[in-house]
């Protein structure tokens, strides 16, 4: 108890310096948490994927389509329960800056495979009935202020021309990991127009999504599918939805690695600031520590004093930073909108934030503590702060 009181008194002897150090710590811990959350958000698609869904795509690359008649053959594969398909639409809403994913899907089978898209039955029916209809996630609808019945014009980059869809429904995610930033439209409608205008491009499917009965069979079913289409005109590559999403994440890995590196650099910067504070503190109190030692306190006591003070400041700054991360993440979430479909500060991030703060405190005190434990009492007493 006495020690704690002494630590507190010591820590706030230089109110301004301690205050500034803590401001630095709060900023660093906040930034560290936000950066980790950004990296997490990148992986959100992977976390939100289901283990009972497989994605079948062309084995050349994702940009090559598969023929529509594969749907029938996929249904016949042992272990496959449901089959649906989707095409990346890649339209532009007003300007390129408004990017959000759009898929042309087979509505009934697709929504059956994605039960986490919660949508009222009457809206669902309205979407099924209107071939030029579309449904969107809640976040996307909020971003652009869309109401049911609104017309949404999209300028096609892959499918030429301007396409206008009527908003028929808005889905809410079953949990925070569900993607609410997409737009879904009728594959059949797009295909019909393609058949009229560009003969060779109709009846093509970007990816098949396959529902399987048992997650453990994913590998076996995938192999069966790929084997069936080996040496055909369009060979396939089947992977779990998680692996499929991960392949997108790994594409931007260089950026992710940079963000992660940077989140460590900020911890190092604050370590330098904090170590600086502790070195100055120790130097100023040289005479004091010498006095303590002269009174009979052990070198270990001096070490404990310095470490305790450093850890105390770090813990206070760390906790404040941690608490501030939440409102900041909320601001960031509303600022970036649909860029990151899911943006949530995870438990692991919070634990790492605290660990980083305490680590900074411990490292910062190491050098001055070692010096102070070794000072010569006479030299210390002679020293004038």
């Amino acid at each position, binding site marked *: 108890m006495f020690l704690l009181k002494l630590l507190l008194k010591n820590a706030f002897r230089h109110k301004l310096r301690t205050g500034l150090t803590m401001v630095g710590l709060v900023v660093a811990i906040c*930034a560290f948490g936000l950066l980790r959350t950004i990296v997490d958000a990148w992986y959100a698609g992977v976390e939100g994927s289901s283990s009972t869904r497989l994605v079948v795509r062309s084995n050349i690359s994702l940009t090559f389509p598969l023929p529509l008649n594969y749907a029938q053959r996929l249904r016949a594969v042992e272990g496959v329960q449901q089959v649906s398909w989707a095409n990346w639409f890649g339209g532009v809403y007003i300007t390129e800056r408004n990017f959000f994913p759009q898929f042309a899907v087979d509505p009934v089978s697709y929504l059956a495979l994605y039960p986490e898209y919660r949508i009222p039955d009457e809206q669902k029916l309205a979407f099924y009935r209107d071939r030029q209809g579309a449904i969107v996630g809640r976040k996307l609808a909020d971003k652009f202020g869309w109401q049911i019945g609104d017309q949404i014009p999209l300028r096609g980059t892959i499918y030429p021309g301007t396409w206008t869809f009527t908003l028929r429904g808005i889905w809410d995610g079953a949990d925070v990991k569900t993607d609410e930033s997409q737009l879904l439209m009728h594959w059949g409608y797009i295909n019909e127009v393609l058949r009229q205008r560009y003969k060779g491009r109709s009846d093509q499917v970007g990816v098949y999504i396959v529902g399987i009965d048992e997650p453990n069979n994913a590998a076996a079913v995938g192999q069966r599918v790929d084997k069936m289409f080996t040496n055909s005109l369009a060979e396939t590559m089947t992977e779990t939805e998680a692996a499929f999403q991960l392949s997108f994440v790994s594409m931007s890995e260089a950026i992710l690695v940079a963000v992660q590196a940077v989140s460590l650099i900020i911890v190092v910067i604050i370590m330098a600031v904090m170590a*600086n504070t502790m070195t100055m503190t120790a130097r100023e109190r040289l005479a004091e520590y010498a006095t303590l030692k002269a009174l009979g306190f052990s070198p270990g006591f001096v070490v404990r004093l310095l470490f305790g003070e450093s850890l105390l400041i770090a813990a206070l700054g760390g906790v404040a930073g941690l608490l501030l991360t939440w409102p900041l993440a909320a601001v960031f979430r509303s600022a970036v909108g649909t860029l990151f479909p899911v943006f949530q500060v995870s438990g692991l991030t919070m634990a790492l934030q605290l660990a980083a703060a305490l680590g900074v405190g411990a490292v910062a005190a190491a050098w001055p503590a070692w010096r102070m434990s070794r000072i010569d009492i006479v030299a210390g007493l002679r020293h004038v702060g």
Partner: protein
Amino acid sequence: MRAVPFSYIARNLWVRRVTTLLTAGGMALVVYVFATVLMMSEGIRSTLVATGQSDNVMVLRKGAGAEINSAIGREQAAILSTLPGIATDGAGRPLVSAEPVVLINLPKRSNGKPSNVTVRGTSALGLQLRPGVKIVEGRMFRPGTSEIVVGRATALGFVGIDLGATLRFAGREWLIVGRYDSGRSGFDSEVWGDAEQMLQAFRRNAYSIMVFRLADPSLFDGIRARIEDDPRLALEAKPEIRFYAEQSEALATFINILGLSLAVIFSIGAVVGAMITMFAAVASRIGEIGTLRALGFRRGAVLTAFMAESLLLAALGGLVGLAAASGMQAVDVSTTNFQTFAELAFRFVMTPRIAVQAMVFALAMGVVGGFIPAWRAARLQIVDCLRAA
């Protein structure tokens, strides 16, 4: 008014070596991050700008935006190649190249995961249109065969890209017969083969893009109007340089925004560090300040002295950070450009402009961190100072 000697300022920093080092180190890291971010987006930009030729024109389907989205049918290609204003080669053939551009998956050397590589079908004319592309090992592919040549960055970045090896895609084995270097342009991250062979293998009837050389750069506006007004075409034409520059925009902007907001957040930490150091410098030298004032140095001189000390500290940090950042120029990076959806290799590029910006940023941190402590030092009363000592 006499100024405090510079040697006094510099030696103050030297006396408190550890503190100086830690503070400057923090600033150096911030400047390092700031500079590398700018270097990265500059690298992407210069790589893609270098890909275009000033008198080449790129033709794509209207609204396609990227090469892989575009499609140009054979009839459209035939119409295009008869347009007036296109330069001809020695044999009188128009310098036009119709090219299929597709993506294939290849495993990356760094992590074994597949990434998208651009495969371009081209021809002898296509090679003439890109004089920057030079074979550095092996030979060029022969027309009409399943031979391919690979770019320098593709060869470095992906598994199994060796001379004499074969790549399997689109139901065929393709023999790698050469490696080319395009002088650090976007083509370095591609694989090139024969256009007609590619169309057959990928079962396509349409090319993706067309490139042609203008006989005279001033003809561009006329030829673009002809292309865009022709209802049979539904195509758009752009100067090649501008097309490739646009391909770099999204990624370069993204990296800029992300990086600069990080640098600003970091700078708060570094400014706090500088402020703590300068406050301590003032506090431990109250007696000295009093003596200086008593000797006849004015408040302004004291303020200048402490500001100079802070700026010196910041300049030291800035220089160290800048030096570390220039070391990054030796590093090659490769990531997916999400505008083209394909792998792009580039380098960090340092320019004088970036160096100046980084130093200004460092000095600004020094000013912000040093001003309040210096102000406080200048405001001290002589009597109080001398008594405190």
